[in-house]
């Protein structure tokens, strides 16, 4: 090796410390003295961070949002009827027509705004809690499953509901059994409506005989393709139909006609008879039929394989080693899909701790980790939310039930990088007493190359130093 390349190697080489990996690869990046805390026993430290999480409880429940929406729809309908009447009665009164349409506009705008407002408030609440958390790995895990069970804010109702899924169904089951998580998600109004199961009824059910309604396969297909077995999980079109029939009648209350809101099982819409899924017969009656199907899917080896791969791909590496996947799958099968134990087996495996950078942070990870590193006392909600918008990962806009990509190639593009540079420059401009050296120590510790260290320290201004730190390979990759 020539002197020059030796020099370059020593300048550029980074070997991530175990503490760096615990804090930055598995968590959302260091805040305060976390690198120091993690140093003594990084494995134990990160495992001890698997703790329950909580949200701002003053934000509305999905049922409240649903009731408000239903009332709005009812009022809208009445308005329309009235308008129709007045059109018939006094069609020449332009004035009254105009007034009415104005009223409608206002009302419409109001519901829309309040749904958007709720979505933003909830999104920002999650972001803020991840930024402030002293056990951020749990928030990473929430983010993982929120994206695994992705719902998008399409249409007025989903704008209001999408952010409630992770709060009401995912967070409470984050560290328990996967089947409980799966059941909670598939029975949550946000998922039922997003994937159209609330109106999926058995072709031979009582209700289908009276009205022209029938089966919708959407949710059943995505449960198998995206939520459990994976696309190569060995199921057939017949299985999709059987599962779809098994969960017919899983619906959402209509607050105008029924008492309350939320999940309901409509027995009169359930397809009668026993079902066969993946070769197993389900003779259960009513709601338990679909529930048993989901419980079995949750502990199917294909599900273990698929979800463990996604977890390892997210937390560890784009190409997780087979031995690591083996350990996780074994734990999954042994514990009946206990997520906490699966994560413990991930953290306990030496393969997860490789000293070189493995993943490029997603915009969400980048924004959260940057905010943890600089530890602003207060972040404007609008600024925080817009950060994710401008970096291309606005919450609940994945646009597909497959969620946002978890691949470097989808996030490290030329224009995406330019957007990150703009964002980092802006954030650095906001910082009052900006000390890049201190932030570098807090967030990276000694896991920083000579080259990066010198570039930051020799920057021409404090603002530029902070921008370089946030944009450095060590901060962008984990």
């Amino acid at each position: 090796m020539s002197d020059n390349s030796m020099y370059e190697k020593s300048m550029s080489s980074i070997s991530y410390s175990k503490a760096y990996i615990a804090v930055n690869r598995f968590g959302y990046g260091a805040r305060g003295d976390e690198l120091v805390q993690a140093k003594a026993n990084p494995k134990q430290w990160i495992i001890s961070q698997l703790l329950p999480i909580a949200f701002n409880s003053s934000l509305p429940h999905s049922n409240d949002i649903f009731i408000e929406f239903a009332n709005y729809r009812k009022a809208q309908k009445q308005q329309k009827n009235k308008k129709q009447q007045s059109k018939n009665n006094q069609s020449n009164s332009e004035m009254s027509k105009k007034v009415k349409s104005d009223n409608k506009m206002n009302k419409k705008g109001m519901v829309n705004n309040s749904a958007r407002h709720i979505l933003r408030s909830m999104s920002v609440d999650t972001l803020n809690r991840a930024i402030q958390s002293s056990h951020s790995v749990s928030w990473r895990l929430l983010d993982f499953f929120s994206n695994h069970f992705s719902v998008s804010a399409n249409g007025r109702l989903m704008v209001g509901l999408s952010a409630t899924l992770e709060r009401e169904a995912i967070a409470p089951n984050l560290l328990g059994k996967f089947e409980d998580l799966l059941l909670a998600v598939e029975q949550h109004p946000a998922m039922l409506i997003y994937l159209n199961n609330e109106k999926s009824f058995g072709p031979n059910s009582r209700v289908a005989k009276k009205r022209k309604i029938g089966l919708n396969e959407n949710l059943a297909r995505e449960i198998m393709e995206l939520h459990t077995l994976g696309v190569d999980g060995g199921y057939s079109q017949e299985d999709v139909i059987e599962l779809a029939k098994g969960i017919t009648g899983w619906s959402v209350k209509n607050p105008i006609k029924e008492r309350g809101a939320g999940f309901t099982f409509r027995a009169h819409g359930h397809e009668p008879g026993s079902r066969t899924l993946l070769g197993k017969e389900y003779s259960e009656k009513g709601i338990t039929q679909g529930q048993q199907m989901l419980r079995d899917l949750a502990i199917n080896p294909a599900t273990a394989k698929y979800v463990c791969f996604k977890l390892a791909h997210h937390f560890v590496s784009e190409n997780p080693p087979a031995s690591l996947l083996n350990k996780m799958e074994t734990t999954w099968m042994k514990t009946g899909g206990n997520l906490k134990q699966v994560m413990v087996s991930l953290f306990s495996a030496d393969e997860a701790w490789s000293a070189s950078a493995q993943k490029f942070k997603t915009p969400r990870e980048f924004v959260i980790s940057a905010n943890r590193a600089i530890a602003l006392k207060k972040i404007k909600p609008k600024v925080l939310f817009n950060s994710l918008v401008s970096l291309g990962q606005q919450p609940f806009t994945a646009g597909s039930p497959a969620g946002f990509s978890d691949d470097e190639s989808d996030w490290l593009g030329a224009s995406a990088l330019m957007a990150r540079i703009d964002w980092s420059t802006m954030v650095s401009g906001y910082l009052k007493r900006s000390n890049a050296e201190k932030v570098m120590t807090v967030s990276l510790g000694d896991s920083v190359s000579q080259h990066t260290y010198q570039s930051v320290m020799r920057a021409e201004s404090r603002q530029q130093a902070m921008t370089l730190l946030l944009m450095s390979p060590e901060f962008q990759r984990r």
Partner: protein
Amino acid sequence: MKYSNEQQINLSEKSSGLSRRKFIKMAGTGLAVLSFPMSSAFAKGSIKANKNSPKIVWLVLRGALDSLHTIVPTFDPQYKKLRPKLSTSFKTPLLPLEKGFALHPSLINLHQWYQEKTMLPIVAVSSGYPKRSHFDGQDFLESGKGEIDQYSGWLARAIDIKHKKALAVSRSTPISLRSSDQVNTWYPSKLKDADDDIYSALSQLYQYDESLKEKLKKGLEVKGLVESEPSKAKKRNGKFIELTKACAKLMIGDEGLDCAMLELGGWDTHNNQSNRLEQKLTELDNGLAALKSGLGEEWANTVVIIGTEFGRTAKENGTGGTDHGTGSALFIAGGAVNGGKVAGHWPGLKEDELFAQRDLMPTSNSFGWIGSVLSQHWQFSEAELKGVFPQMKSYDKKVIKGSVRC
């Protein structure tokens, strides 16, 4: 007495929406107010800035301007010996000043003002900061105490003593204006934040990371392609001109401001200095011209002080640039300035005349000159000046037109 009571009452009612709207209006198209928590005192005009009141604009050039490439000592035989490449790199003739000094050819407007005797270049100055760290050097220059105080700046202390109010064209308050509650920050949100300085620093930073390096290169190519011709011209001017235009508008608007602070980075020219400074000084010169035309008649009452944290090595380095040094230059410009000469004592460039045998030796202190501006433009007494620069007296030099020397 009534005056100060009013001020206090008004200050307790912070952030008036009225003032925000006014600022949006004034800032003009394409520039939106990002953060402007104006006190109602501003909005209601209870401390109305009078027309014709003396104004000060403080501009910090971050990164350490190479003064020898800006105010060139053509008469000094050592100059060409120390800088064989840089001294022959100018593409057009230098702009002559007195005593054999000459301005960089990009500084067309500053040179015109010099000829009109409203620009005073000062050579071989320093804030007194003895080391060579950008961060500390800038903090030192901004705090003005002869030591670093990140919580209090000289301009903040000055405006408090004279009950002035100031605007920082920045996302957060720079040290110069910290410790006063009569300061607001403003920065246009529509402007993309990053600029050429950060891109070139990142290109360096990414030299060992292939994919980041390649993506940045591509991103810059795309940026160049999508930018239309007029916006390319805009890019040559940089965004500084947008900031000075907006700054002028805000200063002469209804709110009336006596004082503003601007910042311009990109001066850390360790390599390729000739091209970089040509572009940077053009950006500076055009920006200042826009400030002048934006201020209109008020330019006659305005003093712009332009400083930098320290100078650069007298000798050019091996990569067509210069490294961190000590003595640099200060510019005082504006309609109120008594200029048209080169101020400051020239120390010479022989080895034993240099500071630590490498840097231009400072022969006067930046704060002494700024003190002279404060005493002659804002009528600071010596006692009041002590509150601004505890370590430094003002110089007995007439820097402001028609002022009485003290």
